[in-house]
């Protein structure tokens, strides 16, 4: 099988986000970058699928500035066979990224299955997976918790609202967006880390994948940090009075009910 994984490099969850002085984006200086955790699930799933199907290969793709190569090395160390880096500027939006990834995938001789995370943990947009599938004109299943691989396609268990699940069948080629619970991503072994350092990463420019700045549909103008967290409020009194006061606060101060 020809297996592909699209990953995104995101700031580590512990990062204290700072903004650029002109508020056009976040200040990337000093940020520790990691693979978005949902994308790690996608990588793990691709490796397991490959290992069950001898002769298969896993190719990892990422679109973004030069820094994303580091995360691609991590994916290679986990066990991916090949890597393709599509060079895009820092501010590229979901559409440009998705169209570029799709462009890179179209250049591949045969694509059987594509894995992604259900969303990236930085912007949490959950757009790129679907957009990639749309640009490729293939089926996609998102928020997937379990996959059964059949000869002609997949049977996926996906999470839907209200804590319920639904079963979805789709035929190859298919894109699957992973949800937490699908698997436990592995820790790269040292021999694989060493091998990953020497693997070649194929670089594609926007011109190679048929996209340009005009594919950027969103322009970010004024980033704002969320207001600082306020101290908690303790409501006293007997249970009835507490409930009444809580309802009043939710209605009048928080304005949520």
């Amino acid at each position, binding site marked *: 099988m020809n297996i592909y994984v699209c990953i995104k490099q995101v700031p*580590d*969850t*512990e*990062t*204290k986000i700072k903004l650029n002085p002109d508020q056009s984006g976040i200040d990337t200086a*000093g940020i*520790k970058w*990691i693979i978005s955790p949902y994308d790690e699930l996608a990588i793990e799933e691709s490796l397991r699928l490959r290992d069950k199907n001898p002769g298969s290969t896993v190719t990892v793709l990422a679109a973004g500035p030069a820094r994303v190569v580091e995360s691609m090395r991590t994916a290679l160390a986990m066990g991916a066979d090949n890597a393709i880096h599509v060079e895009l500027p820092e501010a590229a939006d979901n559409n440009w990224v998705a169209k570029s990834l799709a462009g890179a995938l179209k250049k591949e001789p045969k694509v059987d299955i594509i894995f992604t995370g259900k969303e990236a943990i930085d912007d949490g947009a959950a757009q790129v997976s679907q957009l990639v599938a749309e640009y490729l004109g293939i089926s996609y299943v998102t928020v997937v918790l379990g996959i059964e691989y059949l000869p002609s396609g997949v049977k996926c268990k996906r999470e839907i609202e209200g804590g319920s699940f639904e079963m979805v069948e789709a035929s190859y080629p298919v894109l699957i967006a992973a949800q937490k619970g699908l698997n*436990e991503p*592995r*820790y*790269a*072994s*040292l*021999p694989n*880390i060493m091998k990953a350092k020497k693997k070649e990463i194929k670089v594609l420019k926007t011109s190679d994948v048929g996209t340009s700045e005009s594919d950027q549909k969103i322009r970010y103008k004024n980033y704002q940090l969320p207001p600082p967290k306020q101290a908690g409020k303790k409501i006293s009194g007997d249970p009835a009075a507490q409930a009444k006061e809580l309802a009043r606060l939710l209605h009048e101060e928080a304005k949520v009910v």
Partner: protein
Amino acid sequence: MTWQTYLFLLLAGAAFSYSAYRFSLLYRLMKGHQGKANRLDHIPERILTTIANVLGQKAVLKKRAAGIMHATIFWGFIIISVGTLEQFVGTLYQGASFEFIGERAYSSLLIVQDSLTAAVLLAVGYAFYRRLIVRPEGLGKSKDATIVLILTGSLMLSILLMNGFHILGSEPWYQGSMPVSNLVAHLLKGFGLTPEFNIAMSTLFKWVHMCIVLGFSVYIPSSKHLHIVAAGPNTFLKTLPREKGMKPINFEDESIQQYGAAKVTDLSWKDALDYYSCTECGRCQDLCPAHNTAKPLTPKMLILDLKNNLYNNKEKILAGKIDEVSPIIDEHVTEDVIWACTSCRACEIACPVFIEHTDKIYDIRRNLVMMESKFPAEVQTVFKNMETNASPWAFASSDRANWADGLNVKTMAEDSQVDVLLWVGCAGSYDDRNKKVLRAFASLLKKANVKFAILGTEEQCTGDPARRIGNEYLYQTLAKANIETLNRYQVKKIVTACPHCFNTIKNEYKDFGGNYEVHHHSQFIAQLVTQGKIKPTKTLDESVTFHDSCYLGRWNNIYEQPRAVLQSLPAINLVEMKSNQDQSMCCGAGGGRMWMEEKIGDRINVARTEQALATKAGIVAASCPFCMTMLTDGVKTKEMQDKVKVMDIAELMDQATP
């Protein structure tokens, strides 16, 4: 030449050839190991250690009764062997003896031999009593031990009977020099036997004795009694300094394909010598915190299981088929066994023949982690945190200096012209309870007018948790980054409140080009008190018990200074727990256990807390952030937090100092 000469030549020839063959196999098994161990440095120190511990039986005598028993048998074996040699010579050349050394010398030798024979018999009797009646748990059951004791007892009895009959039959001039044998002769006299019969019986018992000795030489290589040959060399070849560091792996060396030990042969020849030296005395196990809280690890069984693994793979190793050697991890040495170790080194300190258990565990962990990515699931987060944020806990490295907010503590970037660098450590930086310890220590340093600075956000985890868990690669990444920072500021002197940081920077950074004068804060504070720079005056008026940190005590031999700090506090009553100093029990956090869940057996921290509570002290003093966490949790589990406080020695000193 008589029939005796021929018989002896035949028997001795057969026994010694077989024995030599068996020893050569043991030697070839040692040579079949791929790991390296260079142990031929500091020869004079090694000789002295060997004299003290082999001839002087120093380590063995740490356990009084059993030690005296062993020393008696050991010295009996040495002196009586002179007599055995005399028998061999006398049998080869009929009538030859050691009488040529002079009448007085020969008589003295006989007196010593004769009395030691009786003493060894008594010691063997005590050994039987211990094995059959007392039955200490660590000793376990051993058929081998029973056989050896019966043989040793028979050796002594055969000597006494040989000499008794000899005295009766031949009345030699030196009979007065054999008081115990004389007593035997006196008893035998009652049978009224003829001199010819007595001479024949003496010859018979000489042969009984010689045959047992020859039998022993055949039996030793395949029994636990191999220690009488291996323990001496093992003592000579032991890791010398008490301040022990882990050995590094050279990741630049591309010829290394295997990191850590997957198979016994990945360990070193010295590890094999360790197994050969093990006498199964169980002292290691008696003090093991994992074993004592019902975990599957016992250091003794680990060594025996590794020895069995080696023997089971004997044919393959001798045939050079190293690839076919079965893995270490099997139904005996399970992954749970390997992860249960807290690296407290109680086993190594207790071992009378200097077996090094922890190195083997580290090597096995290295293989599991780096080659196979197998480790307790919760550890993956720890590794990732260390990789991205240089801390085992998930905190932003930009927050590393927040603990010092409002204290006006300078960073090296702001002012590097200081007396000493304060190495904060991750616990001091991020853990709420330990932040208070660091604030107290910083306050103390200010009171003593010590000019210090911190690295602030430039400090990274020392890498110790990764190294102890087996991720040497991650350790070296962090260690090298820290050394680069420290050397950039030309740091000479470092003080830290964390024994794990202390041990790593002091003993393990030098392998990567980091050479500093490193102090633990207990040493530093003790010195400030001695120099009169700190004058504790406020009365504490409380009983305090001190819990030894393994990485301060057993790893670095620091027992006095933290106690000196506590004793300098006015009106303090220092009470010791039952197990203290090098016999102390680990809190359960060492060896990376701090970041692993304790799923098997009882909780180590609770067991240790119970020992602390038994002293009735109102304060449990710690000198390590991990001990602090473990004991604080233990006190809470025992619901004693309103009566007993766990405090760092720096906090106590800061409170007492105006």
